[in-house]
Every structure is written in structure tokens, then in C-alpha cells.
């Protein structure tokens, strides 16, 4: 159940998203596709491409979390569950225009599975047989990982199902590995 805080943040992020200048979604979809093709042509190994996408996503995530927090002001989150609700619901709404929905949590509340409908990055994409194993959404996983890293959560984010392989919607899982502590500078 999303907390009151999370619901308020969702409304604020929807309002903020509607004021942002927009770009054609096909431009984004096609650029992303060609981008992945190019990375593949540098190494020709699928594991390298997946790792590179995750790294790129992490670099993005580190920076956009500050952007999000500066535009949408809200109270501190009280728990990891609340943080994930805000990230999945409002974070995606603010940057992507679609809100994710959390499907389930595990018993200790350290792992959640969420669904992203209408992921436009995957529009028209069909992975050919020789690229089986390519994690097309790995950049999004990296963004979440980088963003949570910046607020001291060390997580593992993976895509569980993807529309490029024929599933109906994209499903991701976020697992909390450990809480990082701020390092004091020397």
C-alpha cells in the first residue's frame, strides 16, 4: 500500500512532468536501439554489452536523483519500502511519463518486484536469435541502481521479464543488499 507521502509525491511528479518540454518518443526509441547496436559492435560479446549498459545507467542514476529531489520536495522516507514506492511510482513518472507499479514484496521487505507498462524504449524491438541473452532494459536497471546508491542503498536490480522477448509487460526486481554509511572525509 503506498504511503501518504508516496501518494503526494506521485501527484507532484505528475504535475511536474506535464510542465516539462516533450520530445518524440520514436526519436528516443530509435536512438536507444541504435545506441545498443553500436555498443554491441565495439565488443561483440553480449555480457560486455549488458555490463556496459548497467554502467551507463548507474552514471545516469547518480545524477538524476539530485535532479528529482531538487524539483520535488517531500519528507524523508521512513523505510526502504517507502523509498522504492516513491522511486517506482514518481521517479519513473517524472522522467519517463509512465508510473511503475509494485507487484509484491518478499517477507523481510528487502526485495520487491515491479511492473512497468508501456515502456517506450522497447517499442518495435524484437531480439534476433544471435543476440539471445541481451538485457535490453539493463540501462533502466542501472539508473535505479545508481539512484539508490546515491542515497546509500546498495541494491541489485534485474529485469525479470521483458517485452523484447515476448512478455506482455516489463517486470523488474530490486533487492536490497546492504545499507551504506556515509564515509567521513579524511
Amino acid at each position, binding site marked *: 500500500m503506498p504511503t501518504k507521502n508516496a501518494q503526494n509525491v506521485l501527484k507532484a511528479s505528475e504535475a511536474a512532468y506535464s510542465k516539462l518540454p516533450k520530445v518524440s518518443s520514436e526519436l528516443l526509441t530509435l536512438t536507444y*536501439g541504435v545506441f545498443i547496436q553500436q555498443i554491441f559492435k565495439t565488443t561483440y560479446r553480449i555480457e560486455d554489452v549488458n555490463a556496459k549498459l548497467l554502467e551507463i545507467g548507474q552514471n545516469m542514476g547518480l545524477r538524476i536523483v539530485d535532479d528529482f529531489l531538487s524539483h520535488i520536495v517531500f519528507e524523508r522516507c521512513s523505510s526502504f519500502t517507502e523509498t522504492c514506492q516513491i522511486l517506482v511510482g514518481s521517479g519513473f513518472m517524472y522522467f519517463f511519463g509512465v508510473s511503475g507499479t509494485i507487484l509484491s514484496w518478499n517477507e523481510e521487505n528487502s526485495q520487491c518486484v515491479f511492473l512497468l507498462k508501456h515502456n517506450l524504449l522497447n517499442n518495435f524491438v524484437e531480439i534476433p536469435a544471435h543476440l539471445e541473452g541481451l538485457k535490453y532494459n539493463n540501462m533502466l536497471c542501472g539508473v535505479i541502481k545508481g539512484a539508490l546508491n546515491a542515497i546509500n542503498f546498495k541494491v541489485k536490480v534485474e529485469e525479470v521479464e521483458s517485452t523484447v522477448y515476448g512478455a506482455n509487460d516489463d517486470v523488474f526486481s530490486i533487492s536490497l543488499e546492504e545499507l551504506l554509511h556515509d564515509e567521513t572525509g579524511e
Partner: protein
Amino acid sequence: MNIRCICIISKDNKPLYFHSVTGSEFELRFTVHAALDVLDEKADAKDVSCFKGLLFLTEEFKVYGYIANTHLRFVLIIDNDDNFEIPDSAVRGVFNSIHKELTKLYLNPFFTDFDTTITSNNFQTKISELCSNPT
């Protein structure tokens, strides 16, 4: 309207895709070859629209043609059923759907065989669905 065959040919007359529903594939391919000549004549005409209409009739089939602006040719073969008058708009609809599916295929960033036969499973499923359900 019973669709018997859908064929897509590139501008250099290379066959990109051939899908036949039932019946003798050999005969259908022969008919498509014959249709290409008629389509060539119509291509030179001053008519600007993509839909080239009924190309010719045989005892069993009605053959329709369509040339996209990129000079890609589509040939559609339908059962010749004298009882039914098939409206042009229905055939145009089928060609538009084929063109849309092809465009979606081209937008796939991993699609590279522009001049060779199309092997995508997704595309084949969509075309089979279109054949069984032309509206």
C-alpha cells in the same frame, strides 16, 4: 474474402517475403511472377496513388497490386468468388495493414536484412493473423 497469398518484392525484384495460406504454392508463385509484369506497367503510369487495383483475373484468383513510395511491391492473391463483389476499400485496408506491419519491422533496431528474405517470427505471425482475419 479469402486471402490465398501475400507477397512482398523489393524494388530490384528480389522476393522479400512470400506467404501462402493453402493450396498449391507453385501455382501461387507462378501467378505472382505474372503479376509482376503487370505491376511494372502500372508503375510507369502517371497515377500517383500506391494502390494499383486489380491487376488481372484468372479462373481461380483475383490478383491485386500495391507499390509503396519506396518502390517496394506488394501482391495480394484472393480467391475468385463470383458471388462476392469485393470492395476496393477492403483490399486497400489489407495493403495498408501489410505496409504498417512492415514499417514496424523496419523500426526494429536489430533488423538488418533489407534486401534479403524476412525471417522475423513476429512478422510471420502478424501476416498469418491478417490472412485469417482480413478486416
